[in-house]
């Protein structure tokens, strides 16, 4: 039964990766990154159950903490870029290009 969970997790991770590649809106890209983190968490929880120890759940817990901190900083950066460039598109944030 646990293999199905891992396949679901891989599927969600791939969908998140696809979203990061095809979307241009920085906030939606960020949501896709969150989806990938969630998929990893599902895999960790499944591994914990599969092997009968709780380390996987602890790792998932720490991933959640890091994701919360990451969202705060990422959204602050997006708001700062929006303030100066008046756009939330990742194509417009090319100031470091040259």
């Amino acid at each position: 039964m646990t293999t199905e969970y891992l396949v679901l997790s891989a599927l969600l991770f791939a969908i998140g990766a696809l979203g990061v590649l095809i979307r241009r809106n920085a906030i939606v890209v960020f949501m896709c990154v969150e989806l990938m983190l969630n998929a990893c968490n599902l895999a960790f929880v499944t591994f914990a159950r599969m092997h009968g120890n709780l380390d996987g759940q602890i790792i998932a817990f720490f991933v959640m903490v890091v994701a919360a901190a990451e969202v705060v900083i990422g959204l602050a950066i997006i708001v700062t870029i929006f303030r100066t460039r008046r756009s939330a598109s990742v194509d417009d944030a090319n100031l470091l290009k040259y």
Partner: protein
Amino acid sequence: MGETITFWVLAVVSVGAALGMIFSRKAVYSALLLGGVMLCLAVLYAVQEAPFLAAVQIIVYTGAIMMLFLFVLMLVGVDSADSLVETLRGQRVWAGLAGIGFAVLVILAIGNALFVPEPAGLAAATEQAGGNVQALARLVFTRYVFAFEVTSALLITAALGAMVLAHRERLEPKATQKDMARARFAEGDPSPLPAPGTYARNNAIDMPALLPDGSVSELSVNRHIARYDVERGHLPDDPKLAEALKHAVEEEPVTERSHRHEQASSQETDSQAEVTK
């Protein structure tokens, strides 16, 4: 059996919501669908003997993180749609192929790996501590205590970073109450705008007021309400008042009063600049 049904229902729902998230054109729909995926995952955690993580998932992800996402979405502008200009030609097609290829690779890798047919289950691991939460707490405060401490540094850094990034320098001194009073008297009309007219047969706020000398005050009617009245033909019977309403609509978007206020404030900053000289 119950777990199988739960899994398949939630798997279909979560994959569908995830696909909808990356393909919906409106960012708010994406956010709501992501919330749906997170709720599905919370239930899957609960099914997989992780009740604490299920609660944390709902509280932290769907509660805090999704609220933050929606908040920033409203701040940045909901209608900021994706640009359809392709900076790299054919990027979407290749990205789609890469995504599908990646999914196939990972799923095949999982399918190929040898897994124990029956999961070990967490009953033995949690029994000693007396429950899932107690067992997790024991691990966090013993084996993972250093990671736990580092987490606090991470959270403080994140909070400081958000404050630094969101901070904006104030370039000119904040106007005090004294400055505002001075600006108000400098524009020559310190009283509030005249109230709308109240007459024997009409007390709606779309009626212009009569000034003491009998003339009609256009300032007493909100411009948007006047425009609504003119467009719908709800004009007062008195031709003088109707004329005032039409005139109020034709005025420029910047009302005379705010225009005067801008002038006054620019004069004020000029005088302040002189004072600082």
